[in-house]
């Protein structure tokens, strides 16, 4: 017996001896230390803020209370806001689903030309920040636009449909979010095996029947998941209802929380917190449903996407292509040009004639207003730092998550998803609550500075990087790493020469996503910014609130130009990278 035990120890010792240069207890402690630090960080940055928010909503003068909720439920304003939120979210989700699914079907199954250009055109609606899209549409349908003049000319009573209405919000939100559905559905549709469809056709089913009995049931989980994604995005969206709803007294939950906090100061924190808990709960329920559905549709994950067309459009090809392109132009390019022409006007309320055209608005925002420069600088620094921090932390975590999956880092991944799952305004409020007084009686002086924005951005966007990096690592077989190690490569050598080149495209895509999202972020910064730490989104929002539409449209046009320039650089870089890849 003794002998056996000793042998076991020897064996185990040998195992460990080969694994590392550290002594076993040392390694054990080292790992535990990292795990412990990680756990503390996750708790502090991701779990504690939410707990604090929930607690505050139940906190009364003495002990726990439901009074804040009671107060809410008795306010007519709360119920009307809730109604608006429900209508807007459902309306825009349905709208996005219809357009997104239709376009996905066309791109996935038909032999329409220029698919990649079409893909880009569809994505444009989503790449543009929601407030830019909103400003475009409000200038396009304003009483001063050429559209209004054309309608007037047709019939004196005709006027464009006002965007400052429920319908307008639903519409703009719908066109902003449909690319989400499109992306999601495209993949789902491509993975539906065509032999099933063929089999049904051979069995004498009509096209309609095939769609109803084969395609639709198979696509449904993916579709619903895409719908839920849009549902979450609509709950989260603050820009569109803030620009279009607030002026006409239509508030949704996200704007109501903002108004409470901004208009009433700390006295309203408890009210804002209870509203946030309700909004956050809706978002969490949505996410859970989505997660369940996705697990269901994972069955098709092993399928290879099938990229060859299944439907020959024949004579319909040209008209259909024309309709789609015209539609895309109508929802983005034309309103955008309308926004740009608005930014060239001398005074609001004048028609755009040669005499009224001026570059004064651009001169003002670029050369006479230092805050705009400061904002552009802040946003750039913020998004760069956020991107780098997320790249390092997110990829490091993703590596551990993929190579040594366990219950602990699964929980950590869930925790990091919380700030992004929660609507931005809810997350921002929880950030204020935590960083004002992390420990009772201690103020780190972080609130009201750039630091809180750094913390908030990194916490919110980290999950985007983790997801991209996890996907990258998943695609990389562990055997690559082993091969490198067996061939005698050390830690650095292994990473620099073997792993990084393989991983970089995926990881950098995540980084770019973080950078772009952070650059034009509005919701979180609207609550957290202060003098000297304003961001681009906040500056545009402030101009618009103050009625300086000429400046807000000018700055938005500049941002669009920036994004376009970035896109072109990215394309060139990709071309260059693929060519290089081919060479080697």
């Amino acid at each position, binding site marked *: 017996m003794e002998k056996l035990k000793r042998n076991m120890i020897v064996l185990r010792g040998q195992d460990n001896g080969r694994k590392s240069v550290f002594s076993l207890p040392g390694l054990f402690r080292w790992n535990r230390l990292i795990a412990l630090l990680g756990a503390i960080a996750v708790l502090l940055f991701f779990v504690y803020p939410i707990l604090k928010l929930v607690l505050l909503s139940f906190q009364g003068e003495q002990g726990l209370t439901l009074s804040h909720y009671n107060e809410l439920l008795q306010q007519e304003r709360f119920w009307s806001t809730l109604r608006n939120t429900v209508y807007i979210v459902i309306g825009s989700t349905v709208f996005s689903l219809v357009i997104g699914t239709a376009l996905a079907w066309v791109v996935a199954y038909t032999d329409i030309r220029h698919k990649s250009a079409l893909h880009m055109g569809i994505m444009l609606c989503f790449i543009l920040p929601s407030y830019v899209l909103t400003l475009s549409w409000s200038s396009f349908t304003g009483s001063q636009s050429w559209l209004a003049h054309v309608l007037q000319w047709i019939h004196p009573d005709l006027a464009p449909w006002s965007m400052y209405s429920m319908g307008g919000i639903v519409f703009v939100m719908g066109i902003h979010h449909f690319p989400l559905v499109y992306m999601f559905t495209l993949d789902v549709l491509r993975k539906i095996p065509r032999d099933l469809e063929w089999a049904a056709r051979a069995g004498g089913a009509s096209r309609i029947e095939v769609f109803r009995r084969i395609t639709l049931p198979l696509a449904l989980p993916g579709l619903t998941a895409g719908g839920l994604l849009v549902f979450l995005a609509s709950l989260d969206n603050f820009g569109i209802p803030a620009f279009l709803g607030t002026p006409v007294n239509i508030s949704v939950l996200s704007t109501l929380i903002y108004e409470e906090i901004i208009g009433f*100061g700390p*006295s309203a924190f408890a009210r804002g917190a209870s509203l946030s808990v309700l909004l956050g709960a809706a978002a969490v329920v949505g996410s859970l449903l989505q997660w369940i559905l996705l697990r269901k549709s994972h069955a098709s994950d092993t399928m290879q996407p099938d990229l060859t067309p299944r439907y020959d459009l024949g004579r319909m090809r040209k008209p259909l292509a024309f309709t789609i392109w015209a539609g895309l132009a109508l929802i983005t390019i034309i309103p955008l040009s309308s926004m740009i022409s608005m930014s060239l006007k001398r005074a609001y309320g004048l028609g755009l004639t040669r005499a009224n055209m001026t570059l004064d608005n651009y001169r003002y925002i670029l050369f006479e207003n230092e805050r705009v420069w400061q904002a552009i600088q802040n946003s750039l620094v913020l998004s760069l730092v956020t991107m780098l921090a997320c790249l390092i932390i997110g990829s490091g975590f993703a590596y551990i998550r993929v190579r040594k999956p366990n219950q602990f880092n699964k929980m950590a991944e869930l925790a990091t998803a919380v700030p992004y799952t929660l609507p931005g305004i809810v997350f921002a409020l929880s950030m204020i609550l935590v960083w004002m007084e992390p420990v009772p009686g201690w103020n780190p002086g972080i609130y009201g500075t750039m630091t809180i924005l750094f913390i908030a951005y990194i916490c919110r966007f980290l999950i985007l990087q983790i997801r991209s990096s996890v996907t990258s690592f998943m695609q990389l077989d562990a055997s690559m790493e082993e091969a490198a190690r067996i061939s005698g490569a050390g830690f650095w050598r292994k990473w620099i020469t073997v792993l990084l080149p393989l991983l970089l495209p995926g990881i950098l895509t995540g980084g770019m996503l973080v950078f772009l999202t952070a650059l034009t972020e509005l919701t979180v910064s609207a609550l957290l910014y202060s*003098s000297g730490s304003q961001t681009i989104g906040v500056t545009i929002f402030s101009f618009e609130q103050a009625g300086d539409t000429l400046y807000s449209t000018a700055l938005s046009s500049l941002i669009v130009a920036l994004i376009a320039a970035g896109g072109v650089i990215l394309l060139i870089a990709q071309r260059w990278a693929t060519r290089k890849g081919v060479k080697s």
Partner: protein
Amino acid sequence: MIPFKKSLLLPLLAGMIVFSGCSAQGQATSDQGSSGGASSTVSGKLSFYTSQPEEDAGKLVKAFNDKYPDVQVSIFRSGTEEVTAKLQAERQAGKTQADVLLLADAVTFENLKKDDLLQAYKSPERSAIPTDLVDPDGMYAGTKVMATVLATNTQKVTTQPTSWQVLTLPESKDASIMPSPLYSGAAAYNIGVFSRTDGFGWDFLQETKMNGMAVIKGNGAVMKAVASGEKSYGVVVDYLVAREKSKGSPVELIYPEEGVPIITEPIGIMKEAANVPAAQAFVDFILSEEGQKLSAEIGYSPIREGVAPPEGLKGVSEMKILPGDAAKLAADRETDKQQFINVFGE
């Protein structure tokens, strides 16, 4: 992150500056880059929180910088109510970040004074300002006179109204707009005054609401809606209307016969100001004849005696004023805002 404490020498020097005076009687600013005793002693960062339009605040700061080139002013602009909410939040977070405040009305400053957020500074320039428009304790001083008036779009409205009551009549059905007291200090003041004035009261506000009065965030947005013809009638501060009119927008400015509420956009220094000397120099500059002339050029009715109001605006002596009791209004501001939500919330 923690602003370092200035030595105690600076406040003393600042005192000297104050007495050296900044009378720029008609002279062009000759201090540019000069090492004149006054301007060279004031330097560093100055954080300026205001509810003025960005452009106007920018012009003030630029003129101030011509005089004091060594001060870097950072501006935070939002509606008065948002600025005060922000200050309260900053105070909870441990330290207020602002040095100087210029917000809509005395009521706001009364509340800040009550919360002990301000410090006293009796600028020598106060001698030329009517005593009822400055705080006797020196916590704040008015910087201009601003009436809230009726603006109409001349393309939509042919017979100009003479009374506030037009907002409850069929001719303005769904065609009038006002700023929100939850955002704009001027609007919060107006609600306070109207709801306590005989012949108006909450009933009047309720009726305007029933008549389809739209509420938008700030005065600038109200002006925009009227100028573009989206709305025909607007409740808005006077200088914006005069300015748009002079630019060629189809708008008209009306002082209704019942009278107009006026605010003074006071300026005050925060108790926790990090840069007191620069803050005091800034206050002096805004109240000085030079600052007041600049303010009139920008389009505001000046508060200082002996500076003429701009074209198209009445001076304080020519207006019929709807009075408001600042102390009473200050005590009731939050309840007024809540009441407003109850009336206009849906």
